[in-house]
């Protein structure tokens, strides 16, 4: 009698262990978190299909949403999103937003730096001091200094 309950008990715990392992294994292949693109692709497609001002405006607001939602969730905005938004903000005449976004991308993604230096020259030639780069942690400061020694001018 006693024997039987122990056996059932050990089967149960084995079953439980299996369940836990299975669930854990499933969890590790679950969709990853931390990147938000919202409706970006939809308006990018429409811009390619039939560009007009309304569609470009839509793309601008989709990109703003990508950045805002990412920020509110504590995720980094996805690669390139802030640069693309920057370009559209510039076309709207929003120079401050433009400079801020280019700086954020520059500091967040080191891979973007050559691209920015080549194609967003107006921002990087006279480095803009933004709220984001002001509380400069040591790593970004080191980068800035490295760049200045590479021939970048200080304002």
């Amino acid at each position, binding site marked *: 009698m006693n024997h039987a309950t122990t056996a059932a008990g050990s089967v149960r715990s084995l079953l439980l262990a299996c369940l836990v*392992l299975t669930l854990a294994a499933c969890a590790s292949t679950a969709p*990853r978190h931390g990147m938000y693109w919202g409706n970006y692709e939809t308006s990018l*497609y429409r811009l390619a299909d039939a560009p007009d001002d309304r569609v470009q405006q839509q793309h601008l607001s989709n990109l703003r949403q990508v950045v805002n939602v990412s920020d509110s969730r504590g995720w980094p905005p996805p690669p390139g999103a802030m640069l693309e938004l920057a370009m*559209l903000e510039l076309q709207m005449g929003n120079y401050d937003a433009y400079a801020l976004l280019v700086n954020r991308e520059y500091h967040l993604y080191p891979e973007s730096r050559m691209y920015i230096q080549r194609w967003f020259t107006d921002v990087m030639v006279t480095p803009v001091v933004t709220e984001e780069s002001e509380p400069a942690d040591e790593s970004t400061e080191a980068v800035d200094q490295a760049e200045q020694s590479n021939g970048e001018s200080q304002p």
Partner: protein
Amino acid sequence: MMLRTPLLILLTLTVVACASPRPVDHARFNEQPARSVLILPPANQTTAAQASELYYTSLAVPLSQAGFYVFPALVTQRIMQNEGIIDGAQLEHVPMSQFYERFGADMVLKTTVTQWDTSYVVISGSVTVGVQFELISTRTGEVLWQHRDRRVANTGSGNTNLLGMVLETALNTVQQDYIPLAREINQAAFARVPYGPYHPRYQTPEQYQERLRVWQEERD
């Protein structure tokens, strides 16, 4: 005794879930910097005039989700257009090093749209998309990964009234987006590329070597 079958199933599932899949071939991605990708305008081999531009818009998001730094699609497209480049075929003879010098890209994604077709036969129609992919190192010019795929979607009607069927098929086929098919193709393609540095499951070259060693030991 009733417990035995579910237990067995669970055990099998557990073992299957734990078995690590064959590692994607990283070797070439580990030999040189491979963090950022410049997506070139697709080369268009079809008669659909817009195929290149439309297909281009479906690439940046899945590639960034695979963990790579992807240069902004619209900005890159406009830079290229300013230089008069609309179709990837125009870049055929540009040395790969140019894409590092001008864009800072570690890799270039070259695609060719081989099919972008609609066929429409009275009450059934279909859409076909075919694409070839190549990821190329801008440092060595070496092809790091290549892939090709072609998919067909039927656009037949669910309507049982014949006239309705004819009209609906025509409408579906005209409105049928090629993009859902393109997305399927891209998803399947990029699943065969090792994770990039911004993916939570990215493996450094050292981690990859270790995993490969473990995998080979398990197999032997």
